[in-house]
């Protein structure tokens, strides 16, 4: 495939990426280097939010199909191409939850639990971890996705804003509010009221 001949190291710069995007708008086969570059990041984003690995691969594939079909409408306005792809991934995820093709899942590890407790200024005692794990799924979708992106995936406020269509400042404020909501839920379910 001619697109494969494009040297991947050539598009380290955003302007090189834009050249590939322009080519791919005319011929979808030229999208191959972008697919190679972003497949893993999109897959991991999806995988963390669905319960089955196969569903994550299917949704990832749908994300790229949708991206290529809608590519002629893509215009660079300062927002990285990766954020545009994550926006499509977010919309594909919610579509699959609505269609009941996948179940909304929160994937969390011990380090991430510790990070949230640290944000609460709470030590990592076992029962406190359990309370956090109990209240996390109680959060509504919008605050939950902010907590996931900021504390589990360690994204910058700028990136969160680009993915959710918010300004950097707005993303910061909303994340802070989401943390307060989580803290309230935690306090409500903590019998010791630490």
């Amino acid at each position, binding site marked *: 495939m001619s697109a494969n001949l494009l040297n991947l190291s050539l598009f380290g710069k955003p302007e090189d990426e834009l050249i590939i995007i322009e080519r791919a708008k005319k011929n979808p086969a030229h999208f191959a280097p972008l*697919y190679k570059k972003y497949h893993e990041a999109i897959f991991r984003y999806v995988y963390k939010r669905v*319960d089955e690995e196969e569903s994550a*691969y299917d949704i990832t594939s749908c994300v*790229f199909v949708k991206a*290529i079909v809608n590519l002629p409408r893509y215009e660079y306005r300062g927002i990285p191409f990766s954020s545009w792809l994550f926006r499509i991934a977010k919309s594909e995820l919610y579509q699959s939850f609505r269609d009941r093709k996948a179940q*909304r899942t*929160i994937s*969390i*590890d011990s380090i991430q639990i510790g990070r949230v407790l640290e944000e609460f200024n709470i030590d990592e005692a076992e029962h406190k971890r359990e309370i956090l794990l109990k209240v996390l*799924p109680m959060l509504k979708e919008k605050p939950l996705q902010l907590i996931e992106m900021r504390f589990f995936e360690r994204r910058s406020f700028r990136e969160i804003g680009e993915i959710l269509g918010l300004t950097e400042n707005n993303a910061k404020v909303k994340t802070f509010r989401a943390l307060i909501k989580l803290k309230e839920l935690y306090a409500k379910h903590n019998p010791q009221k630490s």
Partner: protein
Amino acid sequence: MTKLLVNRKEPSRNEIANRQDFETVLVNVRKVKSLNSPWFYGAIAFSSLLILTFLIL
């Protein structure tokens, strides 16, 4: 109901890379594009009209 998975094993970079399938993506792009094409709906409309005319006559 949101499901919670703690310390879930993540697929390795190699496992994910092995599942890349750009050819299938391209095939699905062609399918979606042909479904969105005005020719597709035009052809359906034209044949429906033809059948209707035939039935009336």
